[in-house]
């Protein structure tokens, strides 16, 4: 079962952390990536550039508009994601709970769709 773990951060709160605290968070995340790579559960993941740098695009009646910034003025913004391939939904929850951002902000766990299916 493949899941995407969406990492949400409060950008202001992150900026407020000391460099030491940030290092601890980054290291904890790195350790988990290493562990999941070794178990063969790590599929991939990336950290995102600051949400203030986001661009949004919409196409209406064939007209493309590009605007600065995210859609909403939310305190928490998407900061990164991991994709894992795990044996059970519980395991995905367990990994998300261990991700350091879960202790400060939150992680969203979403199952990925796939192309197979059963007829009955």
């Amino acid at each position: 079962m493949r899941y995407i773990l969406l990492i949400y951060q409060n950008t202001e709160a992150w900026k407020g952390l000391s460099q030491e605290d940030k290092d601890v968070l980054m290291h904890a995340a790195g350790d988990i990536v290493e562990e999941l790579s070794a178990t063969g559960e790590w599929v991939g993941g990336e950290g995102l550039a600051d949400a203030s740098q986001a661009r949004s695009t919409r196409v209406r009646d064939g007209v493309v508009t590009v605007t600065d910034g995210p859609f909403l003025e939310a305190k928490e913004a998407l900061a990164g994601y991991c994709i894992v391939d795990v044996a059970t939904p519980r395991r995905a929850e367990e990994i998300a709970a261990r991700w350091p951002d879960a202790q400060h902000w939150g992680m969203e766990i979403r199952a990925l769709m796939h192309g197979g299916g059963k007829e009955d």
Partner: protein
Amino acid sequence: MNERLLRELAPQVLAAVARRHGRFDLAEDATQEALIAAAQQWPAEGVPANPRGWLIAVATHRLIDALRAEASRNRREEVAFTQEPPPGADVPDEDDTLTVLFLCCHPALSPPSQLALTLRAVGGLTSAQIAAAFLVPEATMAQRVSRAKATIADAGGRFALPPDDQRAARLGVVLHVLYLMFNEGYTATSGERLQRRELALEAIRLTRMTRELLPGEGEVAGLLALMLLTQARSGARESPDGTLVPLAEQDRLSWDGAMLEEGAQLIQQTLSRAPLGPYQLQAAIAAVHAEAPTAADTDWPQVLKLYDLLHALAPSPVVTLNRAVALAMVDGPRAGLAGLDTLSGDRRLASQHRLAAVRAHLHEMAGDTQAAVAGYEDAARRTTSIPEQRYLRAQAERLRDDVEDPPTAPTTG
């Protein structure tokens, strides 16, 4: 042609090398390297007179190289030389494939790891092929395989058949792994996803091989029959545009007659002589469906009786769910819905979307269109399968149209 031969020989070569050196992990890597070398060299140079001996010789050389490298890393060079076999050492004749299979399905491993290792070490597939079938990067799959081998070593797994007192339980794990492998592949798929269907065929091949090694085990035969009877429907399971076709609407003439025949005969013979088991019962149910020339001819009382037996022998939420469908066909949709009551919120039922879909279907049978629409929509939200979601949304849509435009009496004049 070579690939088929290579994959048949893969577990035998691994077994011979692992047995002689006792290093399953390194022997497995060495066997993969020998298979790759054969795949590259044989087409140009021709298949050697003794392909198995050729592969064992190449794998043994690779293993010795690996042992030497390991020893020099450990600064204990003498280890490599004590483990090097004397020149011309005999290749054991016994087929240790079963030992490899039991080891790959070691209970210390998670099911995904058991599957990956079995496909590689017993099935002779490369990590790249397995990764493609499971939609993960090759590096992920390669790590899963090497971690699995390390876990077996840490758990004290040796290259030997499990002791008698653990054998039944360990065979249960092996069969479960083969069943999961089949289920991964038993999917209605479209175009570029064909490789998953090959996974189902690989599960059949390996189960057939297991049956040859353990001809007396009724559950091995039962599992093989179940796979054959299920796979025989594969061509009828989806329409050309990739939409799922439910069992009741499938074109039964496009079922694979030879496969059905083999599965039906196998389960009939097995039921008459082996102690009853859950795989045999599931195969018997599949055989009842296969016997019916049309969906309407299905012997539902017989299906229900078999589900009752299965429920008594190996109760599970999935059995309860399937039994409710049979109950509805025998005693009506209300009886079926009542049979589902115990399942709501059951965390063990991994496929909650199937519960919602079955409930919707039974509401539809009972004429409660509104509940059916809500149920199909609920099921569509819960599934992670794109074709299933498309199917479930189409069901909801179809009924919603009925609600909005009730069929009117034909006007005359």
